[in-house]
């Protein structure tokens, strides 16, 4: 894994979802309260652009992202699919805020 800067913390305000292209990856980054979540920008059901989706609160109170194409939802903290039609998890990447920057860990083989 390589930790790299994704953006300035100010560019990702709470409640926002943004898309970043990092090497071959298209990533969707979201900030919920003080936590930053980075997941692949691709729904596991039909490849919908998750980064264009909205943030919602799941049944268990977890932060989730909803795919704009068919409404599948994923838990941001785990990547787990929480609502049909998606059944497989999406990939997520460890991310944190360090000073003024948002940092993300991307696998070396990417």
């Amino acid at each position, binding site marked *: 894994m390589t930790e790299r800067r994704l953006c300035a913390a100010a560019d990702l305000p709470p409640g926002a979802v943004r898309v970043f292209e990092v*090497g071959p990856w*298209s990533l969707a980054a979201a900030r919920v309260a003080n936590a930053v979540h980075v997941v692949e920008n691709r729904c596991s059901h039909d490849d919908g652009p998750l980064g264009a989706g909205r943030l919602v609160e799941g049944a268990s109170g977890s932060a989730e992202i909803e795919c704009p194409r068919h409404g599948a939802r994923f838990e941001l903290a785990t990547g787990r699919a929480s609502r049909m039609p998606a059944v497989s998890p999406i990939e997520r990447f460890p991310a944190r805020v360090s000073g003024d920057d948002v940092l993300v860990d991307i696998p070396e083989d990417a």
Partner: protein
Amino acid sequence: MSVSPLSPLVSASLARASGDPDWLAAARAAGLERYAKGGLPSRAEHLWRYTDPVRLVPGSAPSDPETRFGDLPPDFADGTFERASAYAIARDGVLLRAAVDPLIAHLGFLVEDLRAAAASRRALVEPRLFALRDTCDGAGGRFDDLAAALFTGGTFVHVPRGVTLDRPVRIAHRVGGGFAASRSLVVAEAQCTATVVIDLSSAAETDAGTLHETIEIHVGRGAELRVVFVQRLGDRATHAPVVRSRVERDGVLDTVTVALGGGLVKSLQTVELAEPGARANALGIVFADGRRHLDHHTFLDHAAPSTSSDLDYRAAVAGRSRSSFTGRLRIPAAGARSSAHQSNRNLVLADTARADAIPELEILTNDVSCSHAVATSPIDEEQLHFAMTRGLSPADARKLIVLGFFEPALEKIPPGMLADGVREVLERKLGAAS
């Protein structure tokens, strides 16, 4: 990656056009204008459902082409002509060298740089270059327009009327880490017979270049042309090939498409069967491993009566890779008495890999014979068990089954050319994937 401003592309297009004849410079300008006006395709459009077009937009102007090719491929016997009628090598879209067997040079077939040919052989090139842009509904035209505006070079293959080439024309193309655009034109005149074998590779496995490539193929009346494409790019390369073909009366086009590499591939292949009796056979094999994303679209248009086509695309996906195949087949009312078969089979070698298959049949007349088939599954346990009862290890049994799955396409590659190399690459990848 953001969508780059157009101005560097405009100046690059102008610079490329500076050595071109007026008609070609005008065509480049028209291509750039269409590209600029077109807007990016929407992700909601079905052809872009699985691939974000933004990832194909160049982040910069084309880099200057490298002028050294590096080591030649093992099957490349430049200078001896035992296996090939002609050899050519290209780097970043520019033809560096081409040689025709001197013993058959009197036949008058040509393998040369497209831009040079545009200047010196206008009568042969101008009527055909860009002529297929709007066939098959102009599908995928936007990036085709980009390649029209920016292409640095490419290969022109011309086989005159009635000539039979008993050995293939062998072309090797290598790309580096920058952005390149190339364009090639293959013309098989009436009653000729020829085979063209093209392989594409990365100069270094780690090169993260982007290649926009358009190949236009014209098959004349009664001509028989086979074109073999072998793509062995590195893991980080992006490849956006557009292959457009038109087949005239009683002509036959055989294509074999092998895609083994590239991190992101968005491929479009169209065939217009323009006159009665035209036939197209299209075989494709796709092997994806690691995190590769390979997206292939084909469009076969039976625009004339009594035409026939047979398409068979096969993909094996391993690791966390993706393969998408969208196969469109159209028989309008004008295509009565045509026959068409399309099949797409996918072997899923890992739970984390995925293959999507979307056949699209648009048949507007009842007087046809049409069939299609799609299958997606893991390796059949019974086949695996059977191979293991013959003493093979599970890994060897898997290799054997996957290679067997691809064999019908590999058999169509001319002997001594690339087929063994493709098998080696597949065996290595399968060894790593199992």
